[in-house]
């Protein structure tokens, strides 16, 4: 069996891409288009919605439908698309700024509403595009261009937030665990309801450089050593989890999505009318 390449979803003549060597966005994009191919997605039925930042540039490389939006609002745009045409595959590509910093409110409510969207989030723990300032997911004490003495704020856990807010599917991956990442993206795309794949991703240019992981390989090494399969991570005592994170599927539920619920309510309204 030949492996899917996903090339038919990529725009011709734009490679090599713009992302820094060692960045995780390209790996995510590769996993995404391979998933599209394996799931048999048609370009015309697929809409990729992006925000602003390094991850927000992905639409430039795709030949599916696309909507490149404002910073943090991609999920709200995607909500309108999906609500009006539930047949479309709507995929939202965001960074940690888009998804849970400026756009945190939309993230919370897209999950609560259980919109049938797939949110794929490159979490590189800082604002890469603007030069490496701290974001809502920057760890406490980390050094960034706006926290040169250390970050006074605490780190937000995107996956935990997604679970709490009501997402049907949540997984965490890294560009090091590349095959597992594709599996999780495929599962997320296939899942009805709000699905989230959070990808811990290296930003050697900014975050790594400021935090003693200047080489691209150093950040990958960190992801390799700190990322544990979910089962293994869960089997550890709470105190032993420090410095590690779970990789793989974290949440898998079957709650009805917004469109399903809206149709239920519509039927109720129509019956009342008659």
């Amino acid at each position, binding site marked *: 069996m030949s492996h899917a390449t996903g090339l038919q979803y990529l*725009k011709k003549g734009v490679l090599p891409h713009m992302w820094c060597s060692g960045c995780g966005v390209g790996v995510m994009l590769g996993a995404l288009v391979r998933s599209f191919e394996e799931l048999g997605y048609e*370009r*015309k*039925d697929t*809409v990729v*919605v992006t925000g*602003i930042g390094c991850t927000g*540039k992905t*639409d*430039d490389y795709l*030949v*599916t*439908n*696309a*909507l*490149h*939006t*404002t910073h943090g*609002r991609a999920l*709200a*745009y*995607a*909500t*309108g*698309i*999906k*609500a*009006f*045409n539930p*047949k*479309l595959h709507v995929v939202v590509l965001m960074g940690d700024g888009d998804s849970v910093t400026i756009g945190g*409110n*939309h993230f*919370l*409510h897209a999950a609560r509403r259980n919109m049938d969207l797939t949110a794929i989030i490159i979490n590189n723990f800082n604002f890469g595009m603007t030069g490496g300032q701290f974001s809502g997911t920057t760890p406490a004490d980390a050094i960034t261009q706006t926290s040169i003495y250390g970050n006074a704020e605490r780190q937000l856990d995107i996956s935990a937030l997604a679970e709490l807010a009501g997402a049907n599917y949540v997984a965490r991956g890294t560009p090091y665990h590349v095959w597992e990442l594709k599996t999780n993206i495929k599962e997320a795309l296939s899942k009805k309801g709000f699905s989230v794949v959070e990808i811990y991703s290296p930003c050697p240019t900014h975050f790594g450089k400021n935090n003693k992981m200047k080489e691209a390989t150093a950040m990958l090494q960190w992801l390799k050593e700190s990322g544990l399969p979910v089962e293994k991570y869960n089997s550890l005592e709470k105190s032993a989890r420090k410095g590690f994170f779970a990789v793989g599927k974290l949440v898998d539920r079957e709650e009805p999505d917004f469109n399903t619920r*809206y149709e239920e*309510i*519509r039927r109720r*309204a*129509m019956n009342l*009318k008659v």
Partner: protein
Amino acid sequence: MELGRKVKLMQGNQAIVEGAFYAGARFYAGYPITPSSEIAEESAKRMPLLGGIYMQMEDEIASMAAIIGASLAGAKSFTATSGPGFSLMQENLGLAVMGEVPCVVINVQRSGPSTGLATKPAQSDVMQIRWGRHGDQSVIALCPASVSECFTLTVTAFNFAEKFRVPVILASDEVVGHMRENITIPSPGELAVAERKKPTGEPAAYKPFIADEDGVAPLASYGSDYVFHVSSSMHGPDGYSNNNPANAAWRVAQLHKKIEMHREEIIITKTFDTEDADILFIAFGATTRASRAAALELRKQGIRAGVLQLMTIWPFADKKIASLGERAKTVVVPEMNYSGQVAGEVQRILGAGADIRKVNSYNGEIITPQDILKAIL
């Protein structure tokens, strides 16, 4: 609900919803805010029955985003808000301009600044409507003065949005939004309803930003055979990012030109006894009615007064004002704001030497005919 010809008592806000449905709107996303909430309530009640979608979003930022998304999926979509919410919508409203996405935003103006007097009327968003977004943009804005106009101008707003691929702002105010009047709902077909141009050529050759001779490019819907990109970033004819200065110049100019090209069609005005008017009232929205009453009172006293009603507030009715203003000895501009936002535009057109009287109310109270008469007699 049948949309037959029927005389009814209806609130302005409700007539806006009726107009939207008449025009074919099937997607509403909004965040309730006084004094626009009846629009959300009526949409929520009726959308499911019409096969449409009502979404109550987490804020006005999301509401604006959702109606743009739905429009690109093929819906005629709208939202309704007031001052604070309209401020929040500005950034995404800019995307609708940049991406040339048809949609309608209702702004039931209330008294500000900031939270201000939530239940009191104002006409103080005139300049925000025109210039509220960063970057130099053109939009269309319409102002109803009665319940009937709430209906008809909402239909017109959707028509302009669809025809010109532009967000259209329907700027009413608390007075017009909450008053009830008898209205005759037009029967289907009585008012023209426009649909956006769809692409017809080879799907692979479709460029969503190559305009036809009328200045407007056909717009496909996500899910059709025409696959396309829309972007908030500067983009080329195909919708993909493009940083070339010549391309940027072409795009920015195009966004303005398509409105300029159709000024005559877009600018809707009404005149009342202006042929021989020595005193010309220039009014819009609720203050039109006080102006008309004042003008009639002046006529009774033998003073030739007339009223120009600006139903389209943006683009501004430069030509009409220039020609009527030339004849008039005195021009009076009553408006519910402090600065004289429309009066300033009138001054720009008629020149510094023109006798322009401003009548302003900014305490949340409406302008009465007596207020106007006091200011000029």
